[in-house]
């Protein structure tokens, strides 16, 4: 019972007070809506008669939507609870004014009130849901919005009862005052929510403002609809439903006007009607909507309302009385907001989210008003221009209902096609997929698509059906389970396992002969599953099967199931025995993959260690990945070296990093050995700093600082970057200032040297590559310089200052320089500011370099210096420029053979040198 209650009302701790307030708020707002609706209907019919209603429909179409739109634009600028309070104050004041105007017999009041109620209906509910979106996060909204929806429905019923029982006693006009009194509750609730949820609302408002600024534009909605047959059909359904609803409303008003002459009796009757309508809608929503949609699909769901209206109107033609008129109106009001609404939501499922937003907005803004206008003109044509009795409207309704049913049939056909297109074209958004299982048509479309899909499309669809249970999926899934592509077969078996259909195991019997143990294990999982758990009784015979692979599959199955089954039946000896048994001739690789995936559940640590060690050398990334995770769990020092070696596989680096980080300081010794060894593969050495930054200790910092002196520039930079990350997070660690200062001096020298070269490089096409390279190098040097400065200064500020130096805004750049001027200390201050404040002249650069014991030769002699640097790429570019510019006096650079050490360290320079030497030698002298 408690469980059922929890399922129905899942309100958690801390949510009760807020939800109760919100529930009462919407209940009151809707109750008042029903009261004022009854009052307006009654007053209008009494004063002007149902024949004049089409004019008020036109008036509503023209202005109500516009008022609501203007209001909503303004609404986002005001704090939500204040907005609610002030809107309620204005509404109450309006109600008082209306009461006063009724007392003095102001004739247009009925018109004004009619439009006013339409605006109140839109605004009060929109405001409430806006507040609800502020006080609940999306996860709470999913749980609690249906409860608030119940509040709205009950509000409708309550409003009906209040009107029904008090209208005659109080008098119709006084119901306006009663409504005002009831709305005072809403002011109190809005004030209470605004105070209690201040922080939540503030946060939500900030997020909302951000969301609004990036909101999708709605232009182009009509074009999208016009170009799509499916969207045109959907829009036709919406337009037809609004036209019909408006005509039904007018016909109903005629009937009431004819049968209930007294004003207060009319009001009471409307109250009673809304009570019936509320209960009918509530019961339909609770017991029928989901069942109809689930059982019969969208086709039937779309047809419910037009068929009901067709039959109801037919009945009214035969028996034109109050009861049949009420039945038609109740059928419209009930099915429109329940089954019809659900079918419309489903119709939008296959539409990509961007298109959906645009078309929905277009429909809200234009279709609704346009259709209301058309309906009004239609009623005027029939009842005023042609002068027919209002019962003729029923024939019009029947005709429109037939058209509607026809459009619904066409839409149903297009729906499946649109759904299939979306599935195949990956246009469906994830939210859609979460709710699509409720719609049999969506599942039909999925099943149909699965039947024809191949290759990557099949893989995608198999992903999409994850978590969807339907007997219709079983056939195509069984077919895919036999697919020669192992990945597809595995995915299909995983989906079949979710279907709660152990009988399907019989159809998979032949797959037990598969040479792939992963397939065998999956089949056994399906065959031996009983009510979500693996049945040891069912599994038992397979453990003693003649076929070794089936026995192994059963063992795997038992281990994977966890709990006692695995531990009871599988010990190290049994497992070894099974593995040996299934060896020769079987798909050993698949078996290893499976075993690797089970490393975490192996009952014996020693056994897990042995397999982990073995699998760490596997070439299969999946096996190796599982072994890495297992090594991270086992934390055996013996596994550190193979883990480090696994860093050479880029796909596994993140796993290795996490696994090694789990070892903490105990792995640092081995890591340091690998990091310092120049023979370690570059891909490993370059990544080790990323591992070290995940082990925040003084020793990690020291190892990284030593990396700043590495011969390889890329390792130096990787070390610097990781030091920066450690410094940002752990400022308590000691970063060797002396060594940092030494590196800083070196980078300053380099920066000045690059600046000199940039200033001096020839401005012609032949030197373009070198020029660009020098600019890039100069930029990178400055970047390194700031990273080093961040080791001894506040890192966040330094980083911001460095970024600001590249701003196009001169004021921002000046602020950055000013900041650096204040925080840096001599001599670095002068050096750094000299580089960034204003572009230094060549003489200034020359003099600065002399202080470092360096020289600054002029072009083209500096090419020789560049060709001699340790920077492989720069040296190659310099050599190429010498050749491209035909600087013959520097051709001697091509004559010397590089020593073997240089050959190894500067492969590009060597390649360029030999290549160009060959060209020079093959060119005849001028």
């Amino acid at each position, binding site marked *: 019972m408690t469980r059922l209650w929890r399922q129905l009302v899942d309100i958690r701790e801390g949510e009760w007070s807020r939800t109760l307030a919100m529930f009462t708020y919407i209940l009151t707002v809707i109750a008042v809506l029903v009261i004022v609706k009854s009052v307006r209907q009654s007053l209008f019919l009494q004063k002007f008669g149902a024949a004049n209603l089409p004019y008020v429909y036109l008036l509503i179409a023209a202005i109500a939507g516009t008022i609501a739109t203007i209001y909503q634009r303004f609404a986002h600028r005001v704090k939500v609870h204040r907005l609610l309070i002030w809107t309620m104050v204005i509404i109450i004041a309006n109600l008082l004014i209306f009461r006063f105007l009724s007392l003095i017999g102001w004739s247009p009041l009925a018109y004004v009130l009619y439009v006013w109620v339409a605006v109140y209906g839109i605004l009060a509910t929109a405001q409430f849901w806006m507040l609800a979106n502020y006080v609940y996060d999306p996860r709470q909204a999913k749980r609690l919005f249906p409860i608030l929806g119940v509040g709205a429905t009950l509000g409708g019923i309550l409003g009906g009862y209040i009107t029904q029982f008090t209208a005659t006693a109080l008098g119709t006009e006084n119901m306006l005052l009663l409504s005002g009194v009831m709305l005072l509750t809403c002011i109190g609730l809005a004030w209470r929510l605004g105070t209690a949820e201040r922080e939540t609302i503030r946060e939500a408002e900030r997020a909302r403002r951000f969301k609004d600024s990036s909101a999708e534009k709605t232009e182009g909605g009509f074009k999208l609809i016009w170009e799509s047959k499916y969207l045109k059909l959907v829009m036709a359904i919406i337009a037809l439903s609004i036209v019909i609803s408006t005509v039904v409303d007018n016909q109903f008003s005629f009937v009431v006007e004819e049968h209930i002459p007294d004003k207060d009796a009319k009001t009471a009757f409307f109250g009673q009607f809304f009570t019936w309508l509320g209960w009918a809608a509530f019961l339909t929503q609770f017991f029928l909507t989901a069942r109809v949609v689930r059982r019969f699909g969208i086709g039937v769901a779309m047809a419910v309302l037009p068929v009901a209206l067709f039959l109801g109107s037919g009945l009214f033609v035969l028996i034109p009385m109050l009861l049949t008129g009420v039945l038609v109106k109740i059928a419209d009001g009930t099915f429109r907001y329940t089954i019809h609404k659900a079918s419309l939501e489903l119709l939008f499922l296959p539409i990509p989210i961007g298109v959906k937003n645009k078309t929905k907005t277009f429909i809200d803004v234009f279709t609704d008003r346009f259709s209301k206008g058309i309906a009004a003109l239609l009623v005027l044509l029939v009842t005023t221009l042609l002068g027919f009795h209002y019962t003729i409207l029923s024939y019009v309704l029947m005709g429109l209902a037939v058209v509607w049913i026809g459009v619904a049939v066409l839409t149903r056909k297009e729906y499946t096609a649109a759904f299939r297109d979306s599935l195949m074209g990956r246009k469906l958004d994830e939210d859609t997929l979460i709710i699509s299982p409720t719609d049999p048509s969506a599942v039909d479309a999925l099943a149909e698509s699965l039947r024809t899909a191949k290759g990557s499309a099949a893989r995608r669809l198999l992903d999409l059906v994850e978590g969807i249970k339907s007997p219709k999926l079983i056939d195509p899934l069984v077919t895919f389970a036999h697919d020669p592509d192992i990945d597809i077969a595995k995915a299909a078996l995983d989906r079949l396992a979710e279907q709660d259909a152990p009988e399907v195991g019989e159809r998979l019997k032949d797959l037990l002969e598969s040479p792939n143990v992963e397939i065998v294990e999956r089949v056994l999982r399906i065959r031996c599953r009983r009510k979500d758990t693996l049945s040891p009784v069912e599994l038992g015979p397979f453990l003693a099967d003649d076929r070794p692979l089936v026995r192994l599959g059963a063992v795997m199955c038992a281990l994977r199931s966890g709990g006692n089954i695995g531990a009871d039946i599988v010990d190290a000896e049994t497992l070894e025995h099974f593995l040996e048994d299934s060896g020769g001739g079987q798909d050993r690789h698949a078996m290893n993959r499976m075993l690797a995936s089970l490393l975490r559940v192996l009952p014996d640590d020693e056994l897990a260690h042995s397999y982990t060690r073995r699998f760490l050398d596997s070439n299969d990334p999946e096996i190796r990945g599982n072994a890495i995770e297992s090594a991270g769990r086992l934390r055996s020092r013996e596994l550190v070296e193979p883990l480090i070696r696994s860093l050479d596989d*880029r796909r596994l680096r993140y796993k290795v990093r996490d696994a090694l980080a789990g070892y903490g300081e105990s792995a640092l010794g081995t890591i340091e050995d690998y990091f310092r060894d120049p023979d370690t593969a570059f*891909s490993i050495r370059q990544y080790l700093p990323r591992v070290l930054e995940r082990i925040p200790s003084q020793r990690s910092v020291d190892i990284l600082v030593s990396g700043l002196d590495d011969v390889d520039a890329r390792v130096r930079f990787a070390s610097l970057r990781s030091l920066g990350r450690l410094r940002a997070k752990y400022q308590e660690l000691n970063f060797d200032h002396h060594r940092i200062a030494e590196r800083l001096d070196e980078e300053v020298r380099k920066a000045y040297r690059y600046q000199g070269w940039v200033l001096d490089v020839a401005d012609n096409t032949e030197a373009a*590559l070198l020029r660009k*390279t020098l600019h890039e190098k100069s930029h990178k040097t400055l970047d390194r310089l700031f990273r080093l400065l961040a080791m001894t200064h506040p890192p966040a500020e330094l980083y911001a200052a460095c970024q600001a130096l590249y701003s196009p805004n001169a004021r921002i750049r000046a602020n950055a320089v000013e900041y650096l001027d204040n925080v840096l200390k001599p001599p670095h201050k002068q050096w750094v500011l000299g580089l960034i404040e204003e572009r230094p002249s060549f003489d200034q650069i020359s003099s600065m370099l002399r202080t470092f014991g360096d020289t600054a030769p002029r072009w083209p002699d500096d090419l020789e210096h560049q060709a001699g640097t340790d920077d492989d790429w720069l040296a*190659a570019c310099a050599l190429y420029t010498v050749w491209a510019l035909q600087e013959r006096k520097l051709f001697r650079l091509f004559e010397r053979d590089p020593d073997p050490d240089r050959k190894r360290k500067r492969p590009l320079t060597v*390649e*360029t040198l030999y290549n160009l030497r060959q060209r020079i030698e093959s060119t005849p002298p001028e």
Partner: protein
Amino acid sequence: MLSTIERVLTLQKNEIFAEVSTEGLAHLAAIAEEVEFDAGDSLFHEGEIPDACYLILAGHVELNRSNQTELTVGPGDDIGVWALFDGEPRVFAARATENTHALKITQEDFYDLLADHTDIVQSFFRTLVRRIRRVLTDRTGQTTNPTG
């Protein structure tokens, strides 16, 4: 056979590599393989899973969809670089219309390179963002907010 520097100079002319540093291009050049196609040879078929991209050095290649020629590309043009990122089946088939000389970069090598050189990844992102922005600008006829 082109030297690394010559390959860099060729790659540099292609818009897709415009944001990559010259040193990054040298790394790309190192993994590029020179390939020759005779007239009529197929580079790849429609619907194939992409495994490489090409940069035409000499010659011409036509791109066909459903046996209809959609486009002909020539020296300096690239084929299928973005396909390496999304792994979706080839939208076009590519066939050499004359003897063609091209640089080929395989997906595996390309990913290995990107894994070790985040600066190249950043460069591709910059190019991608610039392209998206240009498309948006072309569509709206206005300059797009760089932060948007």
